[in-house]
């Protein structure tokens, strides 16, 4: 009796589970971008949504901007949303650090990663007019005096990349926080700062234009567009990888089937040629890492930054 009841329950739940898998998605999926339209997360999300809608039947992925609080407003919104797969967060590395740095009212555990679509390795960029020709010149100069380095903000992953360089390779920097990339670009191209820590995605076009020079890249392999630029490891900086990530996440508690549906959707998008071209043209390197892989990227990033936040007393 008990056995058959149990069997029935198991059968029943698996039936419901499979039914719900078939039932998803029956309505439009909200892709919440926690920033204003026009930023890098917004642009990539729109390119993703455009491609994803080719593979969805009758429903679509709709980008909705919920800006404010440096991303915290939109991120909190998703953390509290119903875990039904219809509210998806355009997740960035800042989700890992915001609870500690900005007092965001969620935890990284409140989200289930779906898949990552872009990894942006950190680069060291300097003005084209700078006397430093190689990373060795740069390193030697930091031993004389701390170099003035402009970063996107104190406590950002770019600032922490510098702090990591200090503990891993003993380089000293004087950080100049900026409000936005344009301000940093002005400081570097105008020669008002000695250099900047930037994501490759933003630095690339300006390096190609010859207004800035990239000295090293924090990636496990050299960038094919810049074959002469050494990796941090090759340059002896003792940091294998330092990269910000972009991906999709859903509220914790979302069913595995839904997560894998979304993850498969992103895989199809990744294999789409038009999407690949458009991402590259906008300056982003398209990748695909499934849910498990994305989780390990997040964990690795968290393991990298949390000690830095604690050692430097950055937590709020």
């Amino acid at each position: 009796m008990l056995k058959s009841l149990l069997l029935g329950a198991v059968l029943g739940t698996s039936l419901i589970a499979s039914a719900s898998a078939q039932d998803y998605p029956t309505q439009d999926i909200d892709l919440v971008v926690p920033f204003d339209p026009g930023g890098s997360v917004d642009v990539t999300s729109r390119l993703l949504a455009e491609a994803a809608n080719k593979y969805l039947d009758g429903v679509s992925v709709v980008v909705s901007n919920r800006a404010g609080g440096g991303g915290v407003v939109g991120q909190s919104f998703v953390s509290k949303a119903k875990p039904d797969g219809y509210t998806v967060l355009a997740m960035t590395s800042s989700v890992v650090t915001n609870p500690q740095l900005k007092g965001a009212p969620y935890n990284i555990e409140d989200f289930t990663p779906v898949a990552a679509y872009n990894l942006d390795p950190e680069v060291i960029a300097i003005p084209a007019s700078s006397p430093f020709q190689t990373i060795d010149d740069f390193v030697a100069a930091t031993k004389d005096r701390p170099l003035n380095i402009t970063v996107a903000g104190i406590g950002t992953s770019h600032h922490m990349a510098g702090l990591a360089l200090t503990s891993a390779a003993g380089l000293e920097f004087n950080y100049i926080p900026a409000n936005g990339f344009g301000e940093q670009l002005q400081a570097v191209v105008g020669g008002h700062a000695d250099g900047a820590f930037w994501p490759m995605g933003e630095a690339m076009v300006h390096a190609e234009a010859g207004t800035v020079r990239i000295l090293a890249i924090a990636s496990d392999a050299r960038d094919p567009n810049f074959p002469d630029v050494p990796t941090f490891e090759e340059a002896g900086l003792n940091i294998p990888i330092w990269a910000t990530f972009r991906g999709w996440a859903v509220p914790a508690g979302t069913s595995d089937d839904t997560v894998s549906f979304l993850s498969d959707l992103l895989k199809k998008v990744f294999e789409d040629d038009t999407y690949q071209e458009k991402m590259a043209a906008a300056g982003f390197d398209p990748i695909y890492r499934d849910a498990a892989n994305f989780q390990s990227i997040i964990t690795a990033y968290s393991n990298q930054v949390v000690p830095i936040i604690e050692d430097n007393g950055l937590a709020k």
Partner: protein
Amino acid sequence: MDQIALGFSELLQPAVLMMLTIGVFAGLVVGSIPGVNDNIAFAVFIPFSFNLPAEQALALMVGIYCAAAAGGAIPAIMIRVPGTASALLTTINGNAMARKGQAGQALSIAMVSSVVGGLLSALVLLVFAPALAKVALRFGYVENAALTILGLSSVVGLLSGNVLKGVISAMLGLLISTIGYSQVTGYPRYTFGSINLIEGIPFVPMLVGLFGVAAVFDLLRDQAQERRENTEAEKLPEIGSMRLGRRLIRRLIPTWLTSAAIGNFIGVLPGAGMLMAIYIAYDQAGRRFRKHFAGRKGEANWDEGAPEGIAAPEAANNAVTASSMVPLLSLGIPGNSTSALFIGAMALHGLVPGPLLFTQHADIAWMIMVAFLACNIIMGPAAYIVIRTVSRVIFSIPKNVMVGVIVLLCLLGAYSDGNNLFNIWVALGAGAVAYLMKIANIPLGPAILGLVLGGQMEASIANSLSISRGDWLVFVDPVNHPISAVMLLAALLMWVAPALRGLRHMRANRFAKGQRS
């Protein structure tokens, strides 16, 4: 020359030209709706632009950007509610003229000034962009710090009489600008635990509140007073004749040229913004007016319907539009928050502004440059049509109905910036504060400049000191930072000149008294 021809051949495709024209009309309308500005219009439009070819989307954005700065003057003149922040100062003399039955004249001055300012700015973009981009690059932390101080000092000229209240107002603005994320430390401060305040009080909703909502409170008070005193409600002004006399045009030429030059200069500098340009231009025009025209027979007082008081801010704000594209197109550095939105719109189409744009996508780069010229040419007649048709209908709506509509539009505009309900409270709160300040006779201008410039002032001073390792003399270093030294000197003069004038005035009075006794 070939490149300019290339730009025109791209622009003169029927679909692109049509989009530019639509943009100009849309911009005039968006600009003339209080509570909705070009920032908000772009935020709404960028997602749609995804489905348009790049050249059409960008032509439309250029049209909106230029025309919104002009359209803001229409409600500023007609009902004393600026349509956009850039028309803030136009309200003063513009509405005064309209109440004297010269609304058409005031509107004409505003539109002609906008076109003149816009055209000069488009020419500057087309001809001098590379050279000016180099000037913009000379502005580092030290220069930016000096620029914010110069900008804040421009307000001294506007303080007719009560300097103390002006200083209080500026302090209030600076204090409020410290709310939120501190660029220097990286921590949010004075947020009272609200995540909505991490980046400070949301700026666009705050502007909507300070200008739109506050003006509505003002209109409501007028109405209440009329009802109490049982007087006939003052009708909205008739538009009337829009002809400008030849003498008036000749008289305004120097103001146009100075204001356009100020707008162009400020526009090219990243981070300075439109509000600083209109304040400096207005201050300059006021000096000129007092010197040449004040007190003459048939002349209105400054702030009470002087044509220069309309021409200066309107020429300056449109001069900022095209010139703010100089650093964006040639370097990839946005000149102000609106031109920053172009980056996003371009990225959606795989375009990245910067030097490479001119080699990889020369057609589009030059199309944008000539589009600024073309849209200012279209804007003149377009403004005439809009004023004669749309505005005429709108301003025949009864005042009390209009008040309700404006409130709704303001709240809608505030909400649509980020789709956050919190923004509505910000708009209402800012409106209430601005209204209370008005009752207490505290000028709003200094507070707004403090709000706009506060964050940049704090960060650029801190960063300058960080680079100089704490040496304050870096700001007046004539060898390494001559631009900063000159700007600080100019700022000093702005403070000293009125004080000296006051002193001379006092001595003259005492002398006269002495003779009498």
